[in-house]
């Protein structure tokens, strides 16, 4: 029994799959950045990218099930060849389509076609933006990234993203710039809105604050810097049993770049497949309710404080 299972047992809780309403597709680990908190260790040197053939299988899989939301993540989805094809095919299957962006990959001129598609299909953009402070943001994401992010946010606003009534939602995601817990979401959203609007005239729809998950590059940093044990204690000590009911893994299924199923992106990063055995989407006809969700000690990152929903 791992520490997370023990915490569940201590609170007489079980973590089981509910109705799966969100299909999360991780299209690869290739990224133009190498953020220090990345649980996937994504970066420019990575070569794992979803092929057109796997995309076709994802599209067929989405057609066999009734998802409400499609969530495209990476790496940097913008860098994946045929990403426009995948979005075009998946968007009509669901009520809402979301794509994660690091903003910098989207800023490049060759993404113009992708941006047009996002506007036309009303694809929600969820952008990494850890801090309104340049130093903290660049320490996490690389020198100069903060400044380019501001440029891209202004450009997105010009296209209507984040503007009330435009139908183009722009969410920001803030992860702590280190081994500490995230800021309360409501408080941080107020401050981000005031600072971004006041200093740069930037608007956005909402902010998510998430704890860093101790996997990949972030775990390496925790271990090298001597922060690992304290951070794990902090996460476990912040376990909030009220978060279990609304955890995203209860209503989400993750597909890896090569077409395998996971309960979440973190299990995908850790190589912990759904139900404990690798299953390719081409072999899955039905997603059953009630099955046990895989767990590990890094799951404490999703149950700390107000949780990761």
């Amino acid at each position, binding site marked *: 029994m791992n520490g997370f299972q023990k915490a569940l047992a201590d609170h007489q809780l079980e973590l089981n799959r509910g109705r799966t309403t969100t299909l999360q597709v991780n299209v690869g680990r290739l990224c133009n950045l190498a953020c220090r908190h990345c649980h996937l260790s994504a970066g420019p040197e990575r070569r794992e990218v979803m092929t057109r053939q796997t995309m076709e299988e994802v599209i067929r899989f989405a057609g066999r099930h009734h998802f409400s939301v499609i969530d495209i993540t990476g790496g940097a989805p913008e860098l994946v060849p045929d990403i426009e094809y995948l979005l075009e095919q998946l968007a009509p299957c669901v009520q809402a389509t979301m794509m994660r962006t690091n903003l910098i990959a989207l800023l490049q001129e060759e993404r113009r076609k992708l941006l047009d598609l996002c506007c036309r299909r009303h694809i929600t953009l969820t952008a990494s933006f850890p*801090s309104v*402070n340049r*130093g*903290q943001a660049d320490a996490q994401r690389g020198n100069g990234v903060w400044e380019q992010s501001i440029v891209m946010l202004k450009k997105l606003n010009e296209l209507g993203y984040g503007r009330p009534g435009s139908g183009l939602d722009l969410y920001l995601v803030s992860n*702590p710039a*280190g081994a*500490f*817990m*995230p*800021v*309360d979401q409501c*408080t*941080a959203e107020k*401050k981000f809105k005031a600072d971004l609007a006041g200093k740069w005239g930037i608007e956005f729809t909402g902010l998510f604050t998430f704890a860093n998950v101790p996997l990949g590059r972030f775990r390496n940093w925790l271990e090298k810097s001597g922060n690992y044990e304290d951070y794990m204690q902090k996460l476990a000590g912040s376990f909030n049993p009220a978060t279990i009911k609304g955890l995203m893994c209860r209503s989400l299924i993750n597909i890896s770049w090569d077409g395998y199923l996971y309960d979440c992106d973190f299990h995908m990063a850790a190589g912990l497949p759904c139900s404990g055995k690798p299953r390719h989407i081409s072999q899955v006809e039905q997603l059953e309710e009630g099955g046990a969700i895989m767990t590990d000690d890094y799951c404490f990152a999703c149950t700390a404080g107000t949780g990761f929903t």
Partner: protein
Amino acid sequence: MNSYYDPQDLPKFAEIGEEAPEIARKFFDYYQAVFAEGELTEREKALIALAVAHAVQCPYCIDAYTNTCLEKGSNKAEMTEAIHVACAIRGGASLVHGIQMRNVCQKVSL
């Protein structure tokens, strides 16, 4: 004991209540109320606490409120400015006593 200060002592703070539980309870209740959101935000209160921690030079408080400030959304620049406020008051408090020195000098000098 290798040092008077041990970071592992900080989580044991509540043990101070073992010999005088009622007084400790009142203190910790008061402490919690002080740091709750009021006319000042929790973030602002944490910055004040960080500055005071430096003024009273408490390593436990510096450790605790550095983390709290980060978790309440303050950045290093804001936290550094808060410490300069403490430094200015501490330095100013020393310097303003120079007037007392000057008064004494004046009284005893020709």
